[in-house]
C-alpha cells in the first residue's frame, strides 16, 4: 500500500499543528463558533446530537493492521470503545472531546492517517472497489489511481471552496463494487483502442434529495490524461455550480440543468485548453512511483485447490454456508478474498468494538499480508487469505463474533446512524435494521431468500444509500412520528437503478411486516435461479404494491 514520504508526513503534521492551534484559539475565545466551524469541518469534526463526531479518512478503504490497531486504540482511549464504518469506506467516532481531537489526529498521523477533507465543500475520500488489486474479474488496480486522485485533491487550492461536497469513486472491474454510477464522478477502468487501460468517466450521479444516475461524459480517457480531465470537470463545476441554494449545489444538478451534451462540451472545451500544458498534471514518473506502491505481495506458490478446504466444506455445514457468502474469487491461485460481516444478527450495522478491530488486525497478519479493506456496505475484507486457511480463519472469526454468514443476504443491511446519532435525521434507522435482522435471523431462511440488499436512511440525505437498495427504506417524520417509506428495485452496481416508491409510508411497528410481505411476494413469484432483483425486474412493482396495500 502507499507509504507516506517526507512530504506527506510534513503535510499531515503541519495540518495537525494547525488544527491544534485552531482548537486552542477556539477554547480561549479568539475564534467564534462561526469562524471555527468551517475549520473543524475541513478536519472531519462534526457536532452531532449527543457529542462531537470525528470522521477519519480511510483512503479508498485500504488499511494496514497497524492502522487498524491504532483505530482500536483511539476508540478505547478517546471514545467509548467502538467505531462505525461508513458507506464511504471511512470510520466515525461518536464521542470525542474537542480538546482531545488534536491528540487523536497526532496519533493518527503517526500511522499515516488523517481526517482531512472528510467534510466540507471539497473533494472527499475517493472510494474504490474493496476487492481492488485482488479481484479475479479486475481489469486494472483502481488503488493506483485512487491514490493519485487523493494526492491531487488534498489541499488543492483551486477546489477547496466548491459549491458543495464532491465525491469520486473508481472501479477497476466490470462488476461494480464501488457504486460509480451514483457518485459526482465515477471512474470505470476500460481498455482503449490499443488495449491500454483508461477510464470511462461518469459525471453527475448521486443520491440524497434528488437521486440521479451519472452520465457517461467520456467513453475512454487515457490514463496520463486523468488529472487534467478531472481538473476540467471540477473547473466547470466550480465556475457554474449553484451557490445560491444548498439543495441545488451538487454537480448532478448542474449536469441535469445544463444538459449532458452541453455539459460535456464545456468539459471537453476546458480540457482541450489545458491538455497542452507543461508540465502535465500527471507526470509519467509520478504514475510509476505510485504504481510501484501497489505491487502484489509475495504470494506463495499454492495449488489452485486445497484438499483440506474441500473436505471441511463437506464435513461442516456451518463453514460451507459461511464460505458461500463470505468468500470471493482471488486472481492468485490458491488464495481467496474474505468479507467479514459487521452485521451480527440484531447488531448495529457497521459498528466494530476496539476488541473486534484488534482481532481483525491480528487475523489480517496471520491469514494474509497485514492488509484490510473497508467496503461501502459497511463490512471489512481480508484480501489475501490462502484457501487452505479458510477453515481456521472462520473458526477464529466465530470466536470473535465476526463469523455471521450473511454477507449479501437480507440481514447484511446498510444503515446510516439515523436519529439516534445524527443532527440531520428525521427518524431512527438502526433499530429498524436490528428488527429486520432479528426477524430474518434464521440463516437457512436467509440463504434460501438469497441475495437481497436492504438499505436504510434516516433522512432524505440518503447516507444509507436507500435509493440503490433492492429494498430501500427511508425514515420520515409525519407529524412528529417516525414513518418509513419503501422503495424497491434499486441497484448500485453497473446495472444501476434508482428504487421506485411503492406507496404510503409505514409506521415503525409495521415496517418490518412490510419487508416480510415484500420478501414473501418475491418468493412466491421467483423463477429458477432468480435473485430478488431479477424477479422484481421481471414482474415489476405492481405485485408488491398489491401485496402491501391491497387491490385499489
Amino acid at each position, binding site marked *: 500500500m502507499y507509504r507516506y514520504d517526507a512530504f506527506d508526513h510534513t503535510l499531515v503534521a503541519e495540518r495537525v499543528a494547525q488544527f491544534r492551534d485552531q482548537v486552542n484559539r*477556539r*477554547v*480561549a*475565545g479568539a475564534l467564534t*463558533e462561526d469562524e471555527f466551524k468551517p475549520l473543524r469541518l475541513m478536519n472531519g469534526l462534526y*457536532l*452531532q*446530537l*449527543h*457529542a*462531537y463526531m470525528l470522521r477519519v479518512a480511510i483512503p479508498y478503504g485500504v488499511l494496514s493492521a497497524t492502522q487498524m490497531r491504532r483505530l482500536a486504540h483511539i476508540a478505547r482511549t478517546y471514545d*467509548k470503545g467502538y467505531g462505525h464504518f461508513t458507506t464511504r469506506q471511512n470510520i466515525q467516532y461518536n464521542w470525542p*472531546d*474537542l*480538546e482531545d481531537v488534536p491528540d487523536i489526529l497526532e496519533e493518527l498521523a503517526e500511522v499515516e492517517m488523517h481526517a482531512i477533507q472528510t467534510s466540507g465543500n471539497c473533494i472527499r475520500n475517493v472510494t474504490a472497489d474493496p476487492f481492488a488489486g485482488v479481484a479475479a474479474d479486475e481489469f486494472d488496480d483502481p488503488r493506483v489511481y485512487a491514490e493519485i486522485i487523493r494526492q491531487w485533491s488534498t489541499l488543492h487550492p483551486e477546489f477547496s471552496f466548491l459549491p458543495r461536497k464532491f465525491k469520486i469513486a473508481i472501479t477497476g472491474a466490470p462488476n461494480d463494487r464501488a457504486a460509480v454510477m451514483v457518485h459526482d464522478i465515477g471512474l470505470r477502468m476500460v481498455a482503449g483502442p490499443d488495449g491500454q487501460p483508461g477510464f470511462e468517466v461518469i459525471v453527475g450521479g448521486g443520491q440524497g434529495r434528488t437521486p440521479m444516475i451519472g452520465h457517461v461524459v467520456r467513453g475512454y480517457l487515457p490514463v496520463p490524461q486523468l488529472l487534467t480531465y478531472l481538473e476540467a470537470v471540477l473547473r466547470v463545476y466550480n465556475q457554474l455550480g449553484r451557490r445560491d441554494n444548498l439543495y441545488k449545489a451538487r454537480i448532478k444538478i448542474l449536469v441535469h440543468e445544463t444538459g449532458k451534451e452541453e455539459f460535456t462540451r464545456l468539459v471537453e472545451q476546458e480540457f482541450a485548453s489545458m491538455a497542452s500544458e507543461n508540465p502535465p498534471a500527471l507526470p509519467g514518473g509520478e504514475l510509476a512511483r505510485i504504481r510501484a506502491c501497489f505491487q502484489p505481495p509475495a504470494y506463495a506458490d499454492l495449488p489452485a485447490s486445497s484438499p483440506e478446504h474441500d473436505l471441511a466444506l463437506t464435513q461442516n455445514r456451518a463453514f460451507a454456508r459461511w464460505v458461500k457468502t463470505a468468500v470471493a474469487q482471488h486472481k492468485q491461485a490458491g488464495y481467496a478474498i474474505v468479507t467479514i460481516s459487521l452485521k451480527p444478527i440484531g447488531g*448495529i450495522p457497521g459498528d466494530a468494538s476496539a476488541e473486534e478491530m484488534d482481532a481483525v488486525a491480528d487475523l489480517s497478519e496471520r491469514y494474509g499480508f497485514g492488509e484490510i479493506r473497508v467496503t461501502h456496505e459497511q463490512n471489512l475484507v481480508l484480501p489475501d487469505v490462502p484457501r487452505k486457511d479458510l477453515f481456521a480463519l472462520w473458526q477464529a472469526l466465530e470466536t470473535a463474533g465476526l463469523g455471521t454468514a450473511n454477507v449479501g443476504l437480507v440481514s447484511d443491511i446498510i444503515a446510516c446512524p439515523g*436519529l*439516534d*446519532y445524527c443532527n440531520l*435525521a428525521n*427518524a*431512527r434507522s*438502526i*433499530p429498524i435494521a*436490528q428488527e429486520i435482522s432479528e426477524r430474518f435471523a434464521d440463516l437457512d431462511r436467509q440463504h434460501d431468500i438469497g441475495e437481497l440488499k436492504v438499505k436504510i436512511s434516516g433522512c432524505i440525505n440518503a447516507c444509507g444509500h436507500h435509493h440503490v437498495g433492492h429494498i430501500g427504506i427511508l425514515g420520515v*417524520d409525519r407529524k*412528529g*412520528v*417516525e414513518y418509513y417509506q419503501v422503495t424497491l428495485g434499486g441497484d448500485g452496481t453497473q446495472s444501476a437503478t434508482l428504487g421506485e416508491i411503492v406507496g404510503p409510508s409505514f409506521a415503525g411497528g409495521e415496517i418490518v411486516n412490510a419487508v416480510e410481505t415484500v420478501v414473501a411476494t418475491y418468493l412466491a413469484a421467483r423463477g429458477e435461479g432468480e435473485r430478488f432483483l431479477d424477479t422484481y425486474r421481471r414482474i415489476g412493482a405492481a405485485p408488491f404494491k398489491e401485496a402491501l396495500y391491497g387491490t385499489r
Partner: protein
Amino acid sequence: MASSHRIVTANRLRDGAVVYLTAEGRWSDMLACGAVVEGEAALAVLLAQAERSVADRLVVAPYAFPVTSGDDGVHPTQKREQIRAAGPTVHPQFARATGLPCATR
C-alpha cells in the same frame, strides 16, 4: 396541541454534550434541571443568557424546544429532543437518566 412550555438547550463546547439552561443560569446535563418557561418574554431572557454563555465559550448553538410540564415531570414533545435527553436508543449503555428529579451539582 402545541406546547407553550419551552426549555433552552445547547451543546457543551468542550465535549459536545447535551446541556440545558437552569433557572440559576448554569448548564446542566439533566433535562429535569432545565428552566421551563412560558411566553416569549421569559424565553427571550433565557436565550440572552444562553448567548452570554456562548460568548463565554461554555456552549454552542443554543435554541429552545417545546416540552410538556406536569405532575409526571418534564417531557420533550419532539422525538429528536427525547433522544437528545435520553441518549441513543440503540446504546442503552450510554443512556442518560431522564426519569430522575433534578439533582443539584
